[in-house]
């Protein structure tokens, strides 16, 4: 059984390691500041006892005020999982750091989010449209898309 790690516990560890990076912790999730996302992701991927080597999925949600991006992390070695969330504000040019350098599985998913939700990922090697054609107006998955 995959153990869903407690968000509070991990959040505490992260806060200890990187003060001021964790915004809030949920049951199985940690909401972190987008600036410290890559740092935290690197830590989660490499820290002993955590070793989240497998990025199951990246999801973005449009909450009108902000966009939330979720990283479903799994450790194949320890068989536990954690959800890392981060938020970015602004509807014009929301930007988040890319985690492709850590998990290449994020490649297509970040492109998909860029394409459909319009969130830019800094540091993505090939951030292009993936499903829609070049020059497609708007981002269909946003709530205000008509």
């Amino acid at each position: 059984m995959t153990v869903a790690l407690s968000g509070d516990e991990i959040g505490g560890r992260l806060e200890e390691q990187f003060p001021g990076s964790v915004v809030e912790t949920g049951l199985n999730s940690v909401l972190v500041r987008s600036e410290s996302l890559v740092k935290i992701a690197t830590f989660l991927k490499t820290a002993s006892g955590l070793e989240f080597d497998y990025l199951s999925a990246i999801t973005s949600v449009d909450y009108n005020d902000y966009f939330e991006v979720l990283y479903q992390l799994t450790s194949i070695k320890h068989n536990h999982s954690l959800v890392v969330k981060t938020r970015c504000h602004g509807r014009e040019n929301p930007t988040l750091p890319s985690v492709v350098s850590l998990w290449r599985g994020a490649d297509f998913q970040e492109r998909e989010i860029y394409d459909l939700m319009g969130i830019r990922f800094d540091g993505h090697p090939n951030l292009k449209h993936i499903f829609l054609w070049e020059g497609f107006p708007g981002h269909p998955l946003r709530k205000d898309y008509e």
Partner: protein
Amino acid sequence: MAIRTEPFVINVGPQHPSTHGVFRMRVTLDGEVIVDMEPVLGYLHRGIEKLAEGRTYTQNIPFTDRLDYLASMTNNLAYAMAVEKLAGIAVPERAEYLRVIMSELQRIASHLVGVGSFLNDCGAFMTPFLYMFREREKILDLFEMVCGQRLTYNYIRIGGVSYDIPEEFLPALDKFVREMPGFIDEYDQLLAENEILLARAKGVGILPKELAINTSASGPVLRASGVKWDIRKADPYSVYDRFEFDIPTGSTGDCYDRYRLRIQEMRQSVRIIKQAAEQLPQGEVLTRVPLRLRPPAGEAYGHIEGPKGELGFYLVSDNSVTPYRFHVRAPTLINLTALRDMMIGWKVADAVIIFGSIDICLGEVDR
């Protein structure tokens, strides 16, 4: 010694017999050797994620059928599990068993198509494909018995399955389970030891273990690389913890391993079906849920081991009748991430079989 020639670009697809749908690869060739490859997707993009935001939870089930149309049952299952998690709905035990039977049958059917078309890409002129379709037809007959459709089932529902099985289903399933191992032996006899296939597929398109994990590959592609990771064992859902089965793994992660792995998984699926059919309890099959279900506000991620990999549904509810966000973690899209690394340096002919061995379904890749 390599003789270098002028590189030229060809478009494999979107209309090409071996791209299994409308997939396009922009391949840069040096002679026959692939120097660069860029996948171009989106020809079948229908915006299901957006469409689903305007429909009730129940109405979305037919949409999930149309994601991976070769494995609709498991799509239904993953979605239903996500909604059940979101709304806290319990599923009757008989329904859980039926779900297991259906999803394992679906796994066999999907692998049959995957392996058949892989062998077709290798150039075996339709014979393995037709042999495998023969058995797939039987599975589709079974599905037709329980839900009346052969491709888009809409069978597994929120809170169970839509209807109990008819009385002729179990004998027919029993017969199928008895016959199937023999047919799998036949597939093995046909091409598993074929020298040409070994030469074509063995050592070709290797996906190393670390890369497989790093690119979030899942399902047979991950397991063929030697990672023993199967959500049915790692995070048992439904009643999978009650059955005995093995997780076959490959050793090198080449095309041949992926092909063999699918065949072995079919054997394991038959084993699971056999046990599930024996243990099948009596009782209700559907917890009644309101047609216009309003799950409490929140979010849920339900994932299962689909035939092609980890199929997950991420749902956000705002306590209305429609999901606020409906996200599909499409296994085949993510399995394609490593395609370029697997292809570079191989020949055009290998590109086709490497692509075939990943076994994608464009309905799911593009959504």
